[in-house]
């Protein structure tokens, strides 16, 4: 795999992408952000990302559907789910369907970096996100 992590961030709240993109790019990742799940899924069809970070609760397509789509298209891609609401059953379903990890709001970019670093490690990447963010 490439040394630069390719990350897709999907959240229907624009502020999430706006805040996460610079924070992750500072750590040396290439980040694409989406608010519309359909556009994000179309992009996932075109390009293989290392990591997909997606909100679980969105209007048309939810995070579970995104997870299923990613698993079908690129089984090696790690999917990290963001949730702001209490959804234990959905979280368990996502775990069972292969989500790499969950991160609950509110969180700091550093918390997400730590999860992404774990995902990168699982992918065999030697990128040290925590070091580059400092």
């Amino acid at each position, binding site marked *: 795999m490439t040394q630069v992590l390719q990350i897709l961030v999907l959240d229907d709240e624009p*502020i999430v992408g706006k*805040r996460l993109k610079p924070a992750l790019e500072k750590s040396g990742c290439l980040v694409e952000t989406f608010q519309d799940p359909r556009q994000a899924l179309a992009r996932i069809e075109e390009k293989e990302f290392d990591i997909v970070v997606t909100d679980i609760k969105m209007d048309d397509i939810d995070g579970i559907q995104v997870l299923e789509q990613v698993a079908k298209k690129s089984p090696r891609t790690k999917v990290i789910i963001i949730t702001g*609401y209490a959804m234990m059953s959905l979280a368990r379903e996502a775990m069972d369907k292969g989500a790499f990890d969950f991160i609950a709001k509110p969180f700091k970019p550093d918390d997400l970096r730590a999860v992404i670093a774990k995902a990168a490690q699982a992918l065999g990447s030697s990128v040290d996100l925590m070091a580059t963010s400092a």
Partner: protein
Amino acid sequence: MPIVIISSPDEETRRLLAQNLARKMACPSVSREEVVEQATEAGIPVAKMEMAVLKRSTPRERLARHKARLMAFITASVCQRASQGDMVYHGRACHMLLKRVGHVIRVQVVPDPEVRLQRVIRDMKVTREKAEGYIKALDSDIAAWVSFAHGVEASNSSHYDLTINLEHMSLESASAVIYQMALMPEFQRTIASDRAMNDLWLAAQARDLLGRDERTGAADLNVTATEGRVTVTYMPSQGKFAEAIPVVLASLSGAREIVSTMASSNILWVAEAFDPRSQTFTEILDVAQRWGAGVEMLRLLPPAADPAQCPPAQASLPEEGAPIPKSQDQTCGIEDDSEAPAASLDTDLAGAREELIHRGRFGGSQVARGLGPEVVQALNPNQEYALVVIGDLFQSKEPSVRTRLTREMAGYLSERIKPPVITGDTLQDKFLFGKRQMGRLGLLLASVVVIYVLTMTNQEPLLRFFGGHDGGTFMRVLAVLVLAMVVPAVAYLYGGATGLILKWLKFE
């Protein structure tokens, strides 16, 4: 009609049953999920708590304050709706919410496993095997949540008034059974049950208000209400919140009086590791609750060969502010990174600290390395300690050496500090009443009774003997000697029995 509370791990089953019953009772049906969503909107990080439970790995003591806020929010919300009339409420373990209220029927519903399985296969589009695995894992997650939120096992049937197994019963029949029960006189509203609910509601509202306000949001408070009198107790280490408490609660309606009081003293518990499931923890908590005291934990590590390895003397729980309602949160849950690295929390303190916060008895925590002198140094000079308990120390040593060193430590401290110092294994004997004390009380009482009976039935010879009428000088001297020995022995037996009875009755 009473309030009906339905608990089940299966959301769909409890929702359908609650809706069916609500139609019969002509009242609204409210779900835990609705109330929890409102709590999330109010800024309580419920998802964070659930994830912590789901992963079973995050240090959960950070979430203890959020948990207190969530429980207060849910209780206040349920009480508020229940005050407007009948209601059916359903959730995972909601039977723990209105524990002392008489006009509540607590129903445990065991879902039909096959119906549940088929629904998961259909909804998740998975195989039967995967669906079984999912249900098993989800039930385990829910059990962990119930344990975290309420400190009980969801399956403990003693918390319910009725358990219904839907494997051989339709939802309609189950609903009819609950409806018939709701008509029984035992579950009707009374003045006392209404008063109990109003007190619970008032206390929950007060806790919720204090949790929302930035001036008191980071405080660990114990809030109770009795007949409209709200009492807020804070630990001595949190005296800085004292002024803000009455100001924040000024807007609380329905309170007859608001009393803000500091726990009078702290119990210092010195140990190497703190296990909230240990006997010592239970006993210390019991004593603290009876005395209205806080429990301060001092984790004492063995002296380091290299002084640079010493941990910071103070490792208090980081304070987080009040939750920000979602409507006012401009960050959509993405906070700024901290400038400084997060303070590392001592995981050996974590579980006990969480439990103490939950019980409103957390009086602070410290970590120190060393022996007796370091314990003396760690005592807060501005703090009145009621008791110092030496728990498990010197854990790397042999048991006999450990016992000797622990006693030496207790002796060293007793000579140098004012509060009484005892070891954890003597706590029960000195301050609590258990099985051993019951046995001792029986023995002492039996001895006292035997002595009294013998005395009453042998008054004449005893008077002759103690009066010195039966003999010469030798007998008189003997009578004095016997009297000198018997009186203290009787006083010891009588005093011991009385002391234990008072301890049993919690008069100290």
